[in-house]
């Protein structure tokens, strides 16, 4: 436990906070309940940190992203709207957006451009599967769903989400018109959305 002593703001004495839904805990953040924050961190920090680390490839920057993400939830819990979906995708969205900002700033500062040789594409089912962040089954499900996409669509998704490239950068990188890249992204997300095993995964992961 990170909170070792009962807090004045905590109302959980004798209750099992672990059984409460994420959405309930977010509502408690509005009442400044530190234990609710601690529980949400315990549930989701690893996934958020792993995603940020994957994008930024260094611990300090990834930690800053995670910290900003959870403190945003703490300070503005009303920004998460439960009728627009589960908490984890929202948290990942906030953290991903922030990580992309950091990545692009780093690239500008270092005058670093993504090198065609270093932009190794990650495909689910690869060598990293044993340590995937949501465990084997989930990573394999995502990997299988991605493998069923046409290569051109899968590459566009991965360059954007996991490499932090903009649509224009991807268009230049792949030598394709910008409109084509936008269409591929939309089709890819729509196909993934219709994948039954991913629908189940979201329910489990959230």
């Amino acid at each position: 436990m990170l909170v070792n002593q009962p807090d004045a703001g905590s109302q959980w004495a004798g209750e099992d906070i672990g059984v409460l839904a994420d959405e309930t805990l977010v509502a408690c953040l509005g009442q400044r309940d530190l234990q609710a924050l601690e529980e949400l961190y315990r549930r989701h920090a690893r996934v958020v940190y792993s995603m940020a680390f994957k994008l930024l490839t260094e611990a300090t920057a990834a930690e800053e992203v995670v910290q900003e993400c959870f403190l945003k939830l703490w300070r503005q819990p009303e920004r998460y709207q439960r009728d627009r979906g589960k908490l984890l995708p929202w948290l990942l969205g906030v953290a991903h957006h922030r990580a992309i900002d950091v990545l692009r700033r780093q690239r500008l500062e270092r005058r670093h451009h993504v090198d065609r040789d270093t932009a190794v594409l990650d495909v689910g089912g690869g060598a990293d599967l044993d340590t995937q962040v949501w465990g084997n089954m989930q990573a394999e499900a995502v990997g299988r769903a991605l493998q069923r996409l046409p290569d051109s669509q899968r590459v566009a998704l991965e360059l954007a989400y996991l490499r932090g490239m903009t649509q224009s950068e991807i268009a230049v990188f792949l030598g394709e018109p910008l409109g084509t890249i936008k269409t591929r992204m939309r089709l890819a997300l729509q196909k993934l959305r219709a994948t039954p095993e991913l629908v189940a995964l979201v329910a489990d992961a959230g």
Partner: protein
Amino acid sequence: MMTRDCEQLVDLLPGRALGALEAGEDEVVERHVDRCPDCASELAEYLRVSAQLAALAPAHDPPPELGARILEAARADLEDAPPRLAALPRRPMRWSLAGWWRQVSPQVAAFSLGAAALAIGWGYSTQQSLDRMQSQLNDTQQQIDRIRDSYQTVALVLASGDMRVQNLGPGEVTATAWGKVWTDPSTGKGMLMAKGLPAVDAGHCFQVWLTRDDQRISAGFLYPVGNGVYYTVLQAPRPVTDYQRVGVTIEPTGGSPGPTTPRVVGGTI
């Protein structure tokens, strides 16, 4: 409803979800979805799908001190600033003592609390009194916010062309209980009214449950609105029309993770 703005922005939504827009485009999308529920819902769906790609990241445990650092910063907020308003009150109202706070404006409440602080100042330190005043003022503001949100939902449901009404019958506690549940499939919102409920003391409340495929979630608490009528806007992570049944039980104030007493009133949605 699809507007010209929507048509222009719909191509940007996948890129927004994947973090692939150009500088300035994110803000355009955010401004639009703030006032367009259809595009907000579409974007949320794309975000939900794109978040799956995080599963491809190899697992890394954050360093143990990161959690402590975040909690420390959060704790410092508590010392620097008064409590914020809840998006949704976790505790139902206090039945006897604090109920009257709902009836007064924040300004009147603040003034009354100031007077109360003077009266009880002998017994408590100034800081304790201020803390309690702040807490009560926040309770008041929460209730006002809740009532305003409730009215908005009620108006939405009542204005819907698809609104459904179901009668609710008594459970095993008292034969006099009955109620109604109104739902709107187009917005997924709904509200519940119940009458003829047994009396509860300050340590107990009426908690509402929604059931879907044998899974039960808490949908909030009933609030008295006078003449023995209780009412709430249903709170659920999914559209309320996705649930098959609704029920109400008596639980300790603050609610329970699951029902601990027989149903007082309930029925199908």
